[in-house]
């Protein structure tokens, strides 16, 4: 046997991997199955396929053939993007990177046998499983609201048809009508998202329906970029937005989708559009697979994104309890690269470097008025900890805000290329 550099570098870990993670019987190559093709799952699929150069068999299971990014879906509502500009498909992952893209639902995970089962009746074996299902809504979180009522009161917190519906409803509002948002409690996908949405709705109404009102019922006393949004609402949409925090009953809300009324702390309001964003939990399959804890989300090992429940499973993105990281597409993309590295190291003995995580959330308040918040994170044994960060300041000049918005356009192009190739 001749020693080459690769086998020398790889030996130690490959042995370890062979002992701790025996390959599924009868498979030529180690196989990774990825559940969910969003910012976490698609990124992980691309990075594992790209960097293993064919040494790992990558299967991505995602129900939709066209994926609409949640990030920038508010900009579509505001008229700043076309719907097709936030639509992506998986053709590049299949053709350029050799990812086996299966359009199906995973309905079960057998952790002992290391197989997943799908709605179409297939069973797929894995050496490592990556679970990136995003969020689902907590039943009964907003009394009166259910999935059956989501056309009358859309959530639009998973992008696509719901986003189109909400935009159409806003544009059809009667003159001087009322748009109401029932904002979610922590933790939820995209902390500044509800308030960027309010900004985008206000932008549309200011143009089309300037006497309309926006009412926000919020269970939280404080939210991300609060001072920036409030300054922007006052400057661009003076008098249009009424935000009711918990001190004004914003946390005591029920809805009647048939009557189109919202009860805020006993005071019943008739509204024309009602955007209900319910409390959230990890995507259902994470619970089915036994990866969630009492919080409804999935505890993970920070350095590798492995599930605390099963070392052969990694969980990514909004479904996780990611310490200090917010639930965002940027976070999921960042976590996916850490997990991809850990998976390749475990299955092929490739090198792994210390986990580094980062996040930035841009929000658009009005035309060319962009703001951002971001941070870097490092793994401790207990959690992913925030170690540094930055945020846009109130009172920034127009040129800086425009530059911030333009930066977000660059980021969108970058992250979607990073996900889908």
């Amino acid at each position: 046997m001749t020693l080459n550099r690769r086998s020398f570098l790889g030996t130690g870990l490959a042995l370890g991997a062979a002992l701790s993670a025996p390959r599924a019987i009868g498979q030529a190559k180690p196989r990774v199955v990825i559940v969910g093709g969003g910012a976490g799952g698609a990124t992980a699929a691309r990075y594992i396929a790209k960097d293993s150069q064919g040494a790992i068999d990558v299967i991505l299971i995602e129900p939709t053939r066209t994926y609409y990014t949640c990030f920038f879906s508010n900009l579509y509502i505001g008229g700043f993007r076309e719907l097709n500009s936030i639509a992506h498909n998986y053709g590049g992952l299949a053709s350029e990177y050799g990812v086996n893209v299966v359009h199906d639902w995973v309905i079960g995970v057998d952790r002992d046998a290391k197989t997943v089962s799908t709605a179409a009746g297939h069973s797929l074996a894995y050496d490592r499983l990556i679970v990136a299902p995003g969020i689902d809504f907590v039943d009964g979180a907003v009394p009166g609201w259910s999935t059956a009522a989501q056309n009358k009161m859309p959530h639009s917190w998973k992008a696509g048809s719901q986003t189109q519906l909400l935009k159409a409803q806003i544009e059809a509002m009667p003159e001087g009508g009322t748009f109401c948002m029932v904002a979610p409690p922590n933790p939820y996908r995209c902390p500044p998202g509800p308030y960027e949405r309010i900004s985008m709705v206000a932008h549309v109404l200011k143009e089309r329906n300037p006497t309309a009102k926006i009412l926000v019922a919020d269970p939280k006393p404080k939210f991300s970029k609060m001072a920036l949004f409030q300054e922007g609402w006052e400057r661009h949409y003076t008098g249009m937005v009424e935000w009711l925090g918990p001190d004004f009953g914003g946390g005591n809300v029920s809805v009647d989708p048939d009557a189109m009324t919202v009860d805020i702390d006993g005071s019943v309001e008739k509204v024309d559009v009602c955007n209900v964003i319910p409390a959230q939990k990890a995507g259902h399959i994470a619970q089915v697979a036994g990866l969630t804890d009492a919080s409804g989300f999935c505890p993970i090992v920070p350095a590798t994104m492995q599930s605390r429940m099963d070392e052969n499973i990694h969980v990514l993105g909004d479904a996780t309890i990611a310490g200090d990281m917010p639930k965002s597409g940027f976070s999921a993309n960042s976590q996916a690269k850490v997990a991809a590295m850990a998976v390749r190291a475990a299955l092929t003995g490739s090198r792994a470097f210390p986990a580094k995580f980062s996040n930035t959330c841009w929000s658009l308040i009005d035309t060319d008025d962009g703001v951002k918040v971001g941070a870097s994170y490092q793994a401790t044994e207990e959690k992913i900890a925030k170690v540094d960060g930055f945020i846009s300041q109130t009172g920034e000049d127009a040129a800086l805000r425009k530059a911030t918005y333009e930066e977000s356009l660059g980021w969108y192009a970058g992250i979607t290329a990073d996900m889908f190739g």
Partner: protein
Amino acid sequence: MRESFILALVLTLGGVGQGVAEETAQAIGDPEAGADVWILCSGCHQIGPDAEIGIGPPLSGIFGRRMASVEGFPYSRSMMRMGRDGLIWSLETLDAYIENPRVLVSGTRMGFEGLEDPTERADLLAFLREFSDKPSNIPEAAPTALAALPTLSDETLAIVGDAAYGEYLASECTTCHQRDGSDRGIPSITLWPEENFVLAMHAYKQKLRPHPVMQMMASRLSDEEIAALAAYFATLGR
């Protein structure tokens, strides 16, 4: 901290580390131990969801709060001035204030001598941090840990040091660190590889390494000056 830093250095320098490397951020302190230290504060300050103004202002949400900004509390004029100047309570400002209140705010009304022990202060800060905003919900909320490595841009690392300038600057270092590399209570820095030197000095400058004298020395050095010192010590005596 020291161990993880050294390991990180090895990795940065391209050591043949295999597997998932252990590089962890450093915890602020031990919040449980901090709960014991809190007894020194709890006579005057309240903390928790229902905390109100007592003899002192409530400390829930203190991280990221502008100084002197709890409505209805009669702050000293000194503290009000700090608030007007826009000073924010952070790990750094709180640590300085708790260590010796009058050093940070000369006319403060807080009747507290100060807490000399850095570990007790760190534990107390870790305890206090648990009652402020979580970055997972509010991404701009204050950090909850200290970074393990200085974050240096490629540009900073690429600076070519001017060894002659380094020799001049080094006179301050060699008061303690012996030129001949002898190691008597003060570690040798002679013939240190340049990149190690640069990383270590930036770690002091960013207060990631704990030694107060070195933090002070490094805080006054520009990126170019650090590179110059590194260039000088790397070749000393050759």
